[in-house]
């Protein structure tokens, strides 16, 4: 067990005017841990994810990240350049809609290679070889390397987005409904892929999803949100097998059995 958390979240709230985005959220994320944030639309899960990943500035509260140099840094006090560098190298962000995370008009290889260049890689041959290797890892045929993601199916685009995010060996990946909008067979393939990569790379991840089956398959720990508050959290198995709060019981009992 690693001795220190990767991310420390202390009393984070976000208000949109008088409307609540999320309120008084505190938790720690440890290296190698996958946390699922579940809840219905409008419960504040995406707002929270945005606050954690510096895409939004929290109204109050502190998010600290354990940098590679061993120091904790308050993300809100970080300079813009440093924050952008962190997001391009040590972090990944997988959007629900791959078009938000990819450059749709440059080739698949360049989508992956761009992140490598952000960490200082300049050798074209190396970049292309690494990009090809990552396409293979996310099960995209190597001969598609020069095609633009516009020509890809939804599932392929999502796998490409994952490759683009993971190529720099980030330590923390944020995912916003990574399987939303994909049909179930494509979803299964993606889940299996993400599961394997998280395990092989020892990634920490925070995954926002409304799909409890996705949470069960991918996450170690789960937080349930309602009206901007975290109403229940714990080991994923425990929250799903023995939900304590009325809303969590409703969520779990609403899963369709096949």
């Amino acid at each position: 067990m690693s001795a220190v958390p990767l991310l420390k979240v202390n009393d984070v709230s976000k208000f949109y005017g008088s409307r609540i985005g999320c309120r008084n959220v505190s938790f720690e994320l440890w290296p190698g841990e996958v946390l699922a944030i579940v809840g219905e639309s409008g419960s504040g899960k995406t707002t929270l994810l945005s606050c954690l990943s510096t895409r939004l500035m929290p109204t109050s509260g502190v998010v600290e990240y354990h940098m590679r140099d061993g120091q904790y840094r308050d993300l809100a006090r970080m300079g813009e350049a440093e924050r952008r560098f962190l997001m391009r190298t040590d972090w990944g962000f997988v959007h629900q809609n791959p078009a938000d995370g990819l450059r749709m008009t440059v080739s698949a290889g360049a989508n992956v290679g761009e992140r490598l260049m952000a960490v200082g890689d300049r050798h074209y041959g190396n970049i292309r070889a690494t990009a090809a290797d990552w396409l293979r890892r996310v099960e995209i045929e190597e001969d598609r390397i020069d095609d633009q993601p516009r020509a890809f199916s939804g599932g392929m685009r999502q796998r490409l987005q994952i490759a683009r995010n993971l190529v720099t060996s980030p330590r923390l990946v944020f995912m916003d409904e990574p399987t939303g909008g994909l049909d179930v067979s494509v979803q299964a393939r993606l889940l299996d892929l993400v599961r394997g990569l998280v395990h092989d790379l020892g990634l920490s991840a925070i995954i926002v999803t409304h799909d409890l089956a996705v949470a069960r398959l991918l996450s170690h720990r789960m937080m349930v949100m309602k009206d901007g508050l975290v109403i229940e959290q714990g080991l994923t198995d425990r929250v799903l097998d023995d939900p304590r709060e009325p809303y969590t019981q409703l969520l779990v009992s609403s899963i369709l059995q096949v």
Partner: protein
Amino acid sequence: MATPLVVSEVAKSFTMHLRDGITLPVVSGVSFSVKKGECVVLGGPSGVGKSSILKMLYGNYAVDAGQILIEHQGHLVDLATAVPRAVLEVRRDTLGYVSQFLRVVPRVSALDVVAEPLLARGVAQDEARAKASELLAKLNLPRELWQLPPATFSGGEQQRVNIARGFITDHVILLLDEPTASLDAKNRRVVVEMIAAKKAEGVALLGIFHDEEVRDAVADRILDVSAFSPRKAAA
């Protein structure tokens, strides 16, 4: 330590918020321990709380009161209050569980389902797969199924995958929830032998077995769970 599992005064009830908040007491005052090399069988009629006890021990059910002390790498962990990552660490290294039904992961082959607990502990893939093959062969799972995901397997085939997955590690405590329920006589005997081998290695086993023949063959001691049932206390 000779007693890797000690359960003390554990209580559990369910509050059903969707049913006007009624509270269903399950068990209370559950106290027992399991020694190394011992197989304790939970007995009593259906619905008395046997599976609930196993699920509390594995962390799938929350515990209302009491302690579940596990000897984990030289120190004691109280699973009743442990944080999630501590529970996961205990599961990875110390506490194994063979559930009644296999949770199937899409696209993962039977062989890799079985090998996974070893991979999680850092064992090399070749070695983990070799051990998994050995176990699947012992449990008579047809070789042509090994590379297929178990979703389409029969109940008995899935259960054998599940047993192999549970038995592949050298966890010092093993929980067994009716591992032989859908097996034929030949494979039941294989499982009985595997349990005997675990006992000889000094593993502490706690299980539920409805099959009398299996129970008599493996049990050192039967613990009557109805003694912990609040319904009995009320009667």
